[in-house]
């Protein structure tokens, strides 16, 4: 197995594997390993009505929402740590009623991706009993059971293995149309390696019909197979590989670069108003032919500052105030 037919540009990968209306899952978590080069491309291609399924998502989700690509979303958390306790464009879209939204918890979303990855029809947990997450639907009754919208948000029933009255929450499995990941390395055989925390990336990838992986480095098959214990996904689960150095910027990529505090702060500010947010999109996304052009517009000194220490994996002493 090799990368023939799989190695492509972000433009090609998005054209081929992401369509308006798709149910899309994004790898990474808040400010780490967001698949930014792929998300820029989705925005540039003007895809609409995406149905995002997220656990805790940050920058990539907020940009997609802000750019008007998202029509529906299931989510546990939309924030960016200290840089945005609630994602700015996400909050605005929800408050304005621009999004059809349904809440789950992080564990629930992780279990749903896991169940989808395992081919399980559903999964039972005790988390969330008696909360409004269990009691309140976000999607309208008319949308239930249509397309990928589950017929029921969830169901509460008795646990047949315990004393009567012992309640459990049954959650529907998730099988997104496409999952977008950013990884540190992909081998020439398509094998994916993720360094540091893998979040729920592997479940999201194994649950999806199609998988696009952007990566910092493409390394020889022999190298990536020298230590198979460290690998995350085999090549036969990957449809497209995009070589995208710095492809998670301004979010972090462990052992490669830290998050970019200046850019995230600037984004947090401009995202607050429609005009300045539009100007951000114009300059950094619509005004770029590809992600390389975006990177070229960044301050090289800022990129130098976020370079990861090879032992620690982040940029120690980085000014993050």
């Amino acid at each position, binding site marked *: 197995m090799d990368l023939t037919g799989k190695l492509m540009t972000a433009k090609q990968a998005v054209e081929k594997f992401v369509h308006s209306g798709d149910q899309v899952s994004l790898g990474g978590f808040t400010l*780490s390993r967001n698949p930014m080069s792929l998300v820029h491309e989705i925005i540039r291609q003007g895809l609409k009505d995406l149905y995002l399924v997220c656990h805790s998502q940050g920058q990539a989700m907020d940009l997609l929402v802000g750019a008007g690509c998202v029509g529906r979303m299931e989510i546990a958390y939309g924030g960016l*740590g200290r840089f945005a306790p609630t994602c700015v464009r996400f*909050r605005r879209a929800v408050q304005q009623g621009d999004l059809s939204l349904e809440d789950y918890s*992080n564990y629930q979303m992780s279990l749903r991706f896991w169940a989808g990855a395992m081919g399980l029809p559903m999964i039972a947990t005790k*988390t969330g*009993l008696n909360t409004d997450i269990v009691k309140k639907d976000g999607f309208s009754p008319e949308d239930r059971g249509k397309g990928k919208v589950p017929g029921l948000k969830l169901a509460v029933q008795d646990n047949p293995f315990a004393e009567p009255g012992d309640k459990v929450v049954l959650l529907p499995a998730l099988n997104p149309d496409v999952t977008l990941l950013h990884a540190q390395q992909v081998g020439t055989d398509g094998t994916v390696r993720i360094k540091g925390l893998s*979040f729920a990336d592997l479940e999201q990838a194994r649950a999806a019909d199609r998988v696009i992986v952007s990566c910092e480095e493409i390394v020889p098959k022999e190298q990536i197979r020298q230590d198979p214990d460290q690998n995350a996904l085999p090549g036969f689960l990957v449809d497209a590989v995009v070589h995208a150095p710095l492809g998670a910027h301004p979010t972090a990529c462990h052992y490669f670069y830290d998050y970019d505090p200046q850019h995230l702060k600037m984004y947090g500010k401009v995202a607050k108003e429609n005009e300045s947010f539009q100007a951000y999109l114009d300059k950094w996304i619509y005004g770029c032919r590809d992600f390389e052009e975006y990177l070229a517009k960044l301050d090289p000194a800022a990129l130098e500052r976020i370079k990861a220490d090879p032992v620690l994996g982040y940029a*120690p002493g980085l000014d993050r105030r």
Partner: protein
Amino acid sequence: MADYTDKEMMALCAGRLVPNGAVLFAGTGLSMLAATVAKRIHAPESVVFFETGGIDPALDELPLAVADPRVMSGSAMNAGLIEAFSILGHRRLSTIAFLGAAQIDPYGNLNSTALGDYRHPKVRFPGSGGACDAASLAWGVIIFMQHEKKRFVPKVDYLTSPGWLDGGDSRQKAGFKRGGPLAVVTNLGILKFHPETKHMYLAEVYPGVSVEEVQEKTGFELDVSQAVETPAPNEQELRILREEVDPQRLILGPAA
């Protein structure tokens, strides 16, 4: 005696509540400070882990989010959400979670989702994240709140994270095997829950704060009869918090 800020006091008070050897489910912000300061002062054997999968990281620098690469360095194990949540609810571990929220009710139920009608919210917050899960599955929960009447409400607009539900044994009856909020640490004092009714009461007020002020800033009736004064932070606590835990004041913010 040194002056100190509300945030410093809250971090230290929450830290004091951490028993040595506890397994701490930490978020960002104050909870990170509380966990780190406790570990450096009186609970060196306690272990911090993150819902993202970072288990017992070195934390040489403060993470600004639970997905910060600083939670992946020098850790016992870098895993993912699935593994982290298996630790959170593990029967053999006394996991303690730190949570914050936009609203809290008299039984420690929390809202971090939305104000107003859920489907047409006046204000949208980030959502549960792992908060609902921690409140459901952890051995105990310590809550941080800004003490304001609009936040301490008789009924939360959206129940994101289960506390003692309707009080009494309602949490157990709902199907939870353990857990429930242990204390609420605010900028005015510390609130705990009545052993039987599970209704919130005032356990401690900070130096210079009156019980009247606490009641006034609480949107429901509080039993204040057992309130004692919290000891002020000592020099060692403040030094460690300021010089070792958050020297850049990333979370502490402006000094006193």
